[in-house]
């Protein structure tokens, strides 16, 4: 049993370590290296409020009304692209590839992809893209991606949190350790929300030797209409086993 002094010291050291900015390895062109395979370990895919600051989405009353009358079928049910930010926190691995001037996101989920130039170029205008138009740039050790042109047909989660064509998302990816990226996004939409709001979550590295993204493709439903296939079966040693070791952390409050 530690003395009170030793306990305090350990606690302060842990806090200091947690707060000290991590210096990530850099790529050949001097940028923080975000490459690798990353996974989400939270329930934001079901309800984005799980990772929202204050666990609340600041809806405008008229937007809530609009949402009550919206289509009840999740666009993902018939294999639509998930949009941003939803694609980030689906329960499927993401692979990040970096080249000078370009960051490529490969999503196992229905083989989605995002090509993000990092020269801060202006957005396309007058087109609706399910995955939006992404313009990236580096802010110190953080990759900042500004996303517009998201249309109005994606959901933010499977709880039918919708948005208008005015949706604008600013993502921030920052390495916080050898096995983690901190993902943050500021979400604004003056036709849906009374103010911009933020989500934040870690992305965890999948470091299993030989782990590769696999193809995940739509399947045919009974009437020939494309439907979402079953979730990827979890491989041995899957990070979900971590959750099973700590039953006290699942469910319940806060």
């Amino acid at each position, binding site marked *: 049993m530690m003395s009170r002094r030793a306990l305090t010291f350990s606690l302060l050291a842990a806090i200091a370590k947690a707060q000290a900015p991590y210096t990530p390895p850099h790529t050949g062109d001097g940028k923080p290296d975000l490459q690798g395979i990353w996974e989400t370990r939270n329930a934001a895919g079901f309800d984005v409020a799980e990772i929202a600051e204050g666990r609340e989405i600041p809806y405008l009353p008229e937007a809530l009304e609009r949402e009550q009358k919206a289509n009840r079928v999740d666009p993902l049910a018939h294999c639509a692209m998930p949009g941003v930010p939803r694609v980030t926190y689906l329960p499927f691995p993401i692979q990040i590839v970096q080249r000078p001037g370009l960051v490529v996101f490969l999503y196992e989920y229905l083989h989605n992809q995002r090509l993000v130039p990092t020269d801060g170029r202006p957005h396309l205008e*007058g087109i609706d893209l399910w995955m939006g138009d992404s313009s990236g740039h580096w802010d110190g050790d953080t990759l900042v991606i500004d996303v517009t042109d998201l249309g109005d047909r994606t959901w933010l989660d499977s709880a039918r949190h919708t948005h208008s064509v005015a949706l604008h998302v600013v993502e921030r990816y920052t390495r916080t350790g050898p096995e983690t990226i901190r993902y943050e996004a500021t979400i604004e939409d003056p036709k849906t929300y009374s103010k911009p709001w933020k989500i934040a979550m870690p992305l965890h590295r999948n470091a299993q030797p030989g782990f590769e993204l696999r193809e995940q493709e739509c399947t045919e439903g009974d009437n020939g209409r494309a439907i979402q296939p079953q979730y990827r079966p979890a491989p041995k040693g899957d990070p979900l086993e971590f959750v099973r070791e700590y039953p006290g952390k699942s469910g319940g409050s806060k």
Partner: protein
Amino acid sequence: MGQVSGWRLAGMLLGLAALPAAAHHSFAAEYDQDKPIKLTGTVTKFDVTNPHSWIYIDVKNADGTVVNWGFETASAANLYRRGIRKDTVKPGTVVTIQGYLAKDGTNTGNAQTMTLPDGTQMILGTEQNPG
């Protein structure tokens, strides 16, 4: 007017290129190239989307009834490269669409060109075929 000048030039330039777009299904099976049609009507909707955009027009028949026709065009991506934006053609605009009839008897066609009220022509077709 300034809005359309960009796409008009892009459309003309695109006429020179014949690079394929999507392999998504065969128009040759769905549409009849021996059944050209040309209809004038009022735009009710222009869904600029993928894999193909669709423009819908209300056409007045000789007996006064109005029928809505749907015409398939190039993808949103290809239209964008030609300078066509999601709001370039607004509902209520009277247009003339030239294309080919669907084989299944519905009021559906594959659009090749569209003429706007001021006489300018938009190339909506998926492929730029020389002949």
